[in-house]
Each structure stands twice: as C-alpha cells, then as structure tokens.
C-alpha cells in the first residue's frame, strides 16, 4: 500500500470518526448545489434568518440530545413549546413582571417534564406512548384555558427578548442558541453529568451498578427537555408578540430527526450537541434553499425525507467502517 493511499485512509477514518458527519455531509452538498443555483443564499441576512430558524428548534434539540443519549424520548416537546408561550402570556396578562412570567412558563415546563419522567422512570411506561399522552393532555389543557385563541397585546419589553438584534444584525435567539450549544457541549463531554447520562444510555444496568444515580439523572434530562421547550415557547411568543395555542405543534418529530441526523444515537450512549445544532441548521437550510432555488413547495416533504434517509445512510456507513466490519 502506497504511503499516500495510507494517508488518505487515515484522513478518511478521522473524518468518519466524527459523529456529526451525518448532518455535515448533506449540508455541505446542499450548500454547493445552492451556491450554483442562487448565490443570493449566502447573503448575510439570509444566513442569519436560517440561523434564527435553527436556533428555535435547537433550543429544544439541545436538551433532547441528552434525553436521547440516555435512551429517553419525548414527544410532548411541541405541546410544551406552545404551553410555555401561553403560560408566559397569561402571566403577563395577569400583571406579573416579565422575569416572573418567564419563571412561571419554565415551571410549567418543569412540571410536565416531571410528569414525563415519572411515567418513564417510576412507572416504567413505554415513553413513546406515554409522552404522546402528555402531548395530547397539554394540548387539551391549552385548548381549555385559552379556547384556542391566541394571547397578544404585549408591551415592547417582552418583544425585545427575541426581536432585539445584537449590533443591529444578529437576532437574540441566535445568541441564546450559541451559548446553549457551547454550554451543552461542555456539559456533555466534560462533566460527570454528561458522562453519566451517556453511560446510562449505553447500558443502564452497568451504569446503575457503577453507582450512578440513574433515576435522578434520567429525571433531570426529562425536566430539562421540557423546561427548554417552554423557553422556546416564551421566545416564540416574544418574537411575534403573540402566544399562539399551537406555536409548537408538529415540531417534535422534525426536531428529533435533526438530533438523530446530527449523530446522536437513538439507541443511547452516543451523543453530540454540536451535531444536533448542525442537524437543526440542515433542516432549516433545506426549507430555505428550496425556496431560493425556486423548487415547488410540493417537493418539500419529499426532499426533506430524502435527505433524512441520506443522513441515516451516511451515519450507518460511518459506524460500519469504524467498527471494522
């Protein structure tokens, strides 16, 4: 084997060892295609728009990464996003100051997270169905309390929360997401908590026998997921100065898809926060790029699904090469 060949192989292996490849490769390919069709795509304003879209889903995707890493699952994140906005809106309407209103929203998220955690951990119900149940109940709760009418008429300070642009350019949600990405990745890869969550996902029994507080760690991941979903809801409400009863409905599966495309294993044990960010960016880019390339929206679902499958294949191939089979 020639030396150059060897070098190439080492490079390939190094590339393949990156969990994030499943999101990165389709993203790069997509960018190359768009660059040819419509270079306008790369205008700063458009990139910021895409990043803002991705930021909202990443806010949920970040904690969801931890949840999936510990072999959990949560289908109620979309409903809790709506709930967060609504609770915050109702609290503001009731005359509470903004920080307290946000706190109320986060607490409502924490409550739902605790319930999900209770179902999954203490009662050992199948999470897929149990969190679907919570999703319905939360949506029902919103319908009952608001009669599905949006809450608007907020004053400007609330809007600033996500409408303010840093240096007149960068929307705040992007800043929040960057902070979350850094903090999340550090927690995942540098802290005991992150390692323990991964260990639980890798093998719950082994982790328990090694003295890890399995139930407590799992509970934290459930609660964090719901709290951040509620936060995303607050920020969405702030963005439109309007808390919509269905602000987050239907987002759960695409957010989860982004996390998995990003390289977090559905079977637990392996996760990357940066990958989840890339996954969110990829999904936001697809929607945006299709419009910029003037591809009919009728194609959108198809292409979305197609890229998802491509990403899964990249990931599968990667794992196969790495495990030496």
């Amino acid at each position, binding site marked *: 084997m020639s030396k150059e060949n060897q070098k190439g192989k080492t490079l390939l292996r190094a590339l393949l060892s990156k969990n994030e490849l499943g999101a990165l490769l389709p993203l790069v390919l997509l960018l190359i295609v768009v660059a040819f069709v*419509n270079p*306008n*795509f790369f*205008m700063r*304003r*458009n990139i910021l*728009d895409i990043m*803002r*879209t991705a930021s*909202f889903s990443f806010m949920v995707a970040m904690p969801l990464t931890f949840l999936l890493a510990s072999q959990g699952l949560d289908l109620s994140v979309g409903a809790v996003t709506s709930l967060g906005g609504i609770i915050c809106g109702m609290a503001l*309407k009731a005359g509470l100051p903004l920080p307290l209103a946000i706190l109320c929203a986060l607490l409502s998220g924490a409550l739902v997270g605790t319930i999900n955690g209770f179902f999954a951990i203490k009662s050992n119900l199948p999470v897929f169905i149990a969190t679907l149940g919570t999703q*319905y109940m939360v*949506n*029902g709760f919103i*319908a009952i309390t*608001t*009669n*599905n*009418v*949006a*809450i*608007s*008429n907020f004053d400007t300070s609330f809007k600033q929360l996500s*409408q303010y642009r840093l240096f007149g350019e960068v929307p705040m949600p992007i800043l929040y997401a960057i902070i979350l990405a850094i903090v999340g990745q550090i927690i995942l890869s540098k802290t005991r908590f992150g390692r323990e969550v991964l260990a639980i996902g890798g093998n719950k029994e082994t982790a328990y026998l090694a003295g890890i507080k399995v139930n407590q760690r799992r509970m934290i991941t459930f609660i964090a997921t719901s709290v951040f979903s509620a936060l995303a809801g607050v920020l*969405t409400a702030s*963005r*439109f*100065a*309007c808390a*919509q*009863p*269905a*602000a987050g*409905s*239907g987002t759960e599966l695409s957010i989860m898809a982004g996390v998995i495309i990003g390289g977090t294993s559905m079977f637990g044990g392996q996760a990357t926060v940066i990958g989840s960010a890339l996954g969110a960016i990829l999904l*936001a880019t697809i*929607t*945006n790029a299709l*419009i*910029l*390339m*003037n591809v009919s*929206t*009728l194609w959108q679902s198809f292409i979305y699904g197609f890229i998802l499958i491509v990403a899964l294949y990249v990931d599968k191939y990667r794992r196969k090469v790495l495990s030496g089979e």
Partner: protein
Amino acid sequence: MKKIIAMMIAVFMLLSFCLAANAEGDKVKCYSFGVMSGGPAWGQYQKGFYAACEELGWDGQYLCPTTDNNMSELFNLHDTAISNGADVMIPCVTDNDAMADILQKAVDQGITMVGIGLTDPHIPYLIGTDNINLGRTIAEALVECMGDKEIHVATMQTILAHTGQTAQVDAFEARLKELRPDAEVVRREECNSSAQISQDKLAAICLANPQTNCFVSFDCYAGLGAATYVESEGLQGQFTVIGIDDAVENLRCMQQGTMAATVAQMWYKMGHDAVMLANDLRNGKDIPANTDSGTAIIMPDDIDAWVEEMGLDMNS
C-alpha cells in the same frame, strides 16, 4: 370481585344511557363539525351554533378532531354522529370522495343536512363562506390596497393539500388576473399554521424574488408571521400584507401598520344561520341552495366599529 365490579359498571352505564336517551328523546339532535376546537374562527362558529340551538331548544353538539386538521378523524366523527341517531347535521365537507359513503348513509337515514365547506352532491343546501367568493374578495381587497402599484404577490396556505383553501387561492388568482392583468403571483406556500414558518418562508421568497411587494394569507397565523417580517425589516408602507379573519392579533398588526387589511369570514353568522336554515327545512320551508354567510374587508379605519359590533376583546 373484579367481575362483580365490571358487571356493576356495565349495568350503571346501560341505565344512564337509557335515562339519557329518554330524557332527550324528544329533543332534536343536531350535530355540527369543524376542523378544530375554539380558535378565533371556529370559536365564533361554535358560539353561533350553540346560540341557535338554544333558541330552538335543540340538543346541539359541535364535534372536531382531537388534533387540529386531522381529516380522517373528521370523517369518522360524521359517521359517529349518524350512528348516534342525528336528526340534523351540519356536515363539514373537506373531501367529496372520501366522505361520499358517509354522506350517502346520512341521506339514506333521512337526516336533514345543511352543509358548510365544499359543495357536495349529497347535500342540496349549503351555507358558509363561499370559497370562490372569499378568494375573489381577497383579490379585490389586495387590488384596493395596492392602488396603482405593481403587484408581485406571494400566497400562504395552511397546507397545500387543503382542497377548500386551494379553491380559494385559485379564485383569488383568477380574479386578480381579471382586475390586474399585469399582476404576478410569485409563489404559493404553506406554513402549517405557524407564524414562524410563515415569516421564515416569506423572507426567503423575498430574497429569491426581490420584486415581491405583497403577501396574502389564507391561514390564520400566516398573516401574523408576514406582519412580523414587515416590522423587522422596517417595510411598513412598502410591503402589503392581507390577513384572514378578525383575530385580535391581526387587528393589532393593522393598528401598528404592519398589516394593510384583513378579510373576515362571518363565522358566528355561519354557525347560527346553518341551524336556522335546517329548522326551516324541517318545517317544510323553501331555502336557497347556496347561502353565503358573507365576508367583510376590514381596513384599519374600520377596526373600532368592527370590534364593537362583534364584541371582541382587544385586550385578550
């Protein structure tokens, strides 16, 4: 022990069912259907429907899917109502083919029907916002707002697969061409009732087609998203957004100058009059095949009068 409890529950249920059937046996059972519960549009519809049932002393019930816009569940609800012995139905037809069997059953059982939604051979009488009329009215509203400016418009539906909305958009485009042959429809989009998606997509559309200067919403939250786009880009006065329905957030956008007009459907009237028409039918009166519950173009100047007339709470 378990068996005894199960038996007791069964007996109890049977009894209560019989009692309920007896108690309401003489009342006219009237079912109405919609794609969601509450909300600015359907909430008004429900109010009108229940008000009319109360006036007539009918036993009215509004049914809708547990998840918004779940069409197959909507079809099943029609079926359930027929099995429950409905006397009057206000069916909401969203797909003629898929619902043909169910509606045929209703016809066979002699159930009085006044439909909302699509025209259907099984239902001789319809009330509601006529899709064609609505589309045409929106086109007229847009042309009025645009004055002598060029028109490069993007439209946003809930989902492209929504037959009724597609009919509206088609009628909109046709009428627009009649009024302004030079007008260009830049793109048809869908936003799944998310203001966020609406705003993001509009930004991309404007980048891809910089000539775009107006936006028409066929989805209740698309207008809010577009108005937010106008606000964030500082395009007040340069970019025209037409919303749909009289949701408070739309009216507020108009007050702030980010939305030019909204076209309201008369949801309360629709719910109320549907029941009244059905009552006329039962009493052997003649009613027109199509009753348009009407639409109204609301301009910023009309807001106060409208709010008062409809009893809306601008502080909600």
